[in-house]
């Protein structure tokens, strides 16, 4: 069986027929949008911000993450609920399908075709496409809502809103007014690489522990500003583009590429020896 047929099958079964993958991001985007608009209105009514918010602000609100946390007895750690929801839902949505396929219809196909490499590479492509689609649906839903409510669709960002929404206290930030495409795109790439990492990890341990590891990785990234914790590159606020002591986006792009490559190769090697008949 050719790779392209595997891929077509995975896109059909794992994406197009995966209602959760198609609807969940839209629902999340609507809820976050309502929260975002509500906050913006309250700030505007209280005279805390000078003008209305734009689509760039929404992207920042979605992928911003949180301020640099400094542990202190009087400063309890509060995880960034918007950011962690956006990034943790997609590993969950993509967790089950490869194994459902492997121990279901896919097993027959795999046994008959005997092409494990094609199966794995197809799953990698499916994983990447699924993640990108998830973020795309979120963006498109928000764009539609911005259009319907006739709000400003531009990549302008308002620092007064961001300062309030992210509770930026004394941290030194660069004053930015435009959200570049590359800045908004890197979090999606981080999401892709982490999902791939989870899929590979699930070949070594049970899928639930793969998800558990990813959850801890995201939480650790929110807790500590470090260039070694990849989750930091999924937080726009923590880039050196915004935060003066933030992480480098170039290093982030390198880390994303490395993690993606290592995950694909490690998964490929592991899958060659993976017992597809015994495990469940």
């Amino acid at each position, binding site marked *: 069986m050719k790779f392209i047929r595997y891929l077509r099958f995975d896109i059909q079964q794992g994406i197009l027929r995966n209602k959760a993958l198609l609807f969940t991001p839209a629902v999340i985007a609507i*809820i976050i949008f*309502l*929260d975002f608009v*509500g906050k913006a209105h*309250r700030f505007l009514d*209280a005279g805390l911000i000078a003008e209305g918010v734009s689509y760039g602000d929404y992207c920042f609100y979605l992928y911003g993450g949180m301020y640099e946390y400094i*542990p*202190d*007895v*009087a*400063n*309890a*750690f*509060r*995880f960034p*609920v*918007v950011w*962690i*929801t956006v990034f*943790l*839902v997609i590993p*969950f949505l993509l*967790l*089950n399908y490869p*194994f*459902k396929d492997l121990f279901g219809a896919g097993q027959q196909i795999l046994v008959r075709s005997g092409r494990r490499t094609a199966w794995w590479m197809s799953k990698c492509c499916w994983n990447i496409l699924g993640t990108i689609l998830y973020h795309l649906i979120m963006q498109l839903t928000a764009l539609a809502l911005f259009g319907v409510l006739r709000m400003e669709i531009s990549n302008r960002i308002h620092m007064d809103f961001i300062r309030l929404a992210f509770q930026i206290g004394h941290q030194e930030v660069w004053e930015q007014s435009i959200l570049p495409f590359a800045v908004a795109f890197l979090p999606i790439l981080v999401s892709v690489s982490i999902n791939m990492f989870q899929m590979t990890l699930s070949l070594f341990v*049970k*899928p*639930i522990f793969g*998800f*558990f590891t990813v*959850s*801890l990785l995201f*939480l*650790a990234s929110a*807790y*500590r500003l470090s260039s070694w914790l990849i989750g930091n590159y999924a937080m726009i606020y923590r880039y050196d583009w915004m935060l003066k002591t933030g992480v480098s986006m170039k290093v982030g792009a390198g880390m994303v590429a490395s993690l993606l490559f290592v995950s694909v190769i490690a998964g490929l090697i592991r899958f060659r020896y993976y017992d597809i008949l015994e495990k469940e």
Partner: protein
Amino acid sequence: MILKEMLKLEFRKALRNKSFYISLIIGCIITMFSLVYNIEIYQNEIMMIQGDRLNPMYGVLSLFNRWIGGEPFSFGSSAYFFVFPLLVAIPYGWSYCEEKQSGYTRLVTVYSGKKAYFLAKYAAVFLSGALAMVLPLVFNFLVSALFFPAVTPSPLYCTSNGVFYGSLMSMLYYSAPFLYVFFYLCIDFVFGGLIACLSYSVSCIVKYKVIVVILPLFLLLAFHYLRQFIYTSPEVHHYKEISPLFFLRPVQIVYHTSWTVILIGAAILFFITFLSIIWEYRHEIY
């Protein structure tokens, strides 16, 4: 008689399985992160106190604000109270889903009857989740007691303790702190069990084990996020904490909670889980 036998069987299955031990080990490892971090801070503070001749502030350094439940700022503490919905579901929350898929449910109910089976399963899932939640906390408390003095906390240093005037059981915290810890462990025990039972309820409609185990985390996360639509006024500082992800911590994170919130939360969880099991009980399993 059959119910008693089923309870014995289910408890044995719930507490003597690999997943239960793995969950406990992971929980204990996470709590160790908190312990190591706090020992480091404690040693630094002791050195600072010895270095000057000012007020030694002995009340600041206490077991009750250094164990994992007493501090809100270490990674261990933050991680434990974030992933606990997974830790409580891993031991046995998946069991009904697996038994339903494998056909075991159909076989065992022939012998025991549906009622005994469903009740015993509920009790076993509750107990496994409750123990998975509380045992790592107890472990951390006991190990922390080896390093930190169990000084009765002083309300003068309430900012260091994270338990304020309006906090739940604050009087108890500053007068009988062991009792305070015990009551909080009881609250965590009950909620750990009920959240594990959420997995059992989810099994009634979902057929994949991995989804059954993870879904309670997302339900709690969704509830935690939706509370942002309630806490809207920046002027009001007296909201009640309604998210279990925060109020199950024996230290105040943002707002303080109340017995009313805790009891209503527990009642809602109990009714949701129990009613879904009754719904499943009344449905055909063959």
